[in-house]
């Protein structure tokens, strides 16, 4: 697939995800719109041939953040119903198409990484930057991560 076509498909799905997030009454649907938009963003990163950031996007955003949001929605059970609306034929077909799309994007990542025709973002340069010029930033980020983990535990802890 050419990168332009990948960009347009991903852009349209990202905007659709945003519209779902904005207009759906159910909180779970908003989270699913966010997830759709994150996966589409990974496709956009692929279309500008930056496969490392695409994989990081899927792992970090879709894997961690979206799952965290869904867990919290499940915990605070405001409406006492949090089943995913995957009942009708339309929803099921949309689910199947999106899973196929994610699989295609993942296969495309491998193709882009191994193909030689495109100028792919070089992971070696980025990694070398991380441990030479921006070492201080990375260390500060690790501190931020530790502090945020501790703060999240402290804030959400039940007072005994």
């Amino acid at each position, binding site marked *: 697939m050419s990168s332009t076509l990948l960009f347009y498909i991903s852009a349209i799905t990202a905007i659709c995800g945003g519209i779902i997030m904005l207009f759906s009454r159910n909180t779970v649907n908003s989270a699913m719109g966010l997830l759709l938009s994150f996966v589409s963003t990974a496709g956009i990163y692929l279309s500008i041939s930056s496969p490392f950031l695409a994989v990081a*996007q899927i792992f970090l955003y879709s894997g961690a953040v979206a799952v965290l949001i869904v867990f919290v929605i499940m915990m605070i059970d405001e409406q006492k119903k949090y089943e995913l609306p995957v009942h009708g034929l339309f929803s099921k077909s949309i689910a199947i198409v999106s899973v196929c799309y994610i699989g295609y994007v993942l296969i495309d990542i491998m193709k882009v990484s191994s193909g030689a025709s495109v100028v792919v973002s070089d992971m070696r340069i980025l990694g070398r930057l*991380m441990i030479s010029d921006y070492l201080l930033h990375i260390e500060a980020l690790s501190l931020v991560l530790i502090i945020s983990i501790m703060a*999240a535990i402290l804030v959400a802890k039940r007072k005994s």
Partner: protein
Amino acid sequence: MIYHYVVLSLILFSLGLITVIVRRNLIVILIGIEFMLNSVGILFVSYARFYNNYIGEFVALVIMLIAACEMAIGLSIVVAMFRIYGSVKSNDIRELKN
């Protein structure tokens, strides 16, 4: 071509901003903030790739990490707020008003 990426990033950012302004559920507001951060990441990566500069990709990575931290703390605050007020609507939280 980079114009398309800028326009897409603008559209996504405005969708997130409208979500933050319009919706009253605290979790959906956090989702909108996350959406805005994501759109800024798209802008950084597209400029980095079009000018073949790696600093932009690094900044996008930093944005992802900061967004994960922000999400953890924000959601824990939402959970604590739900324990106190019994609701996650932003209208119900008006302790400082009087």
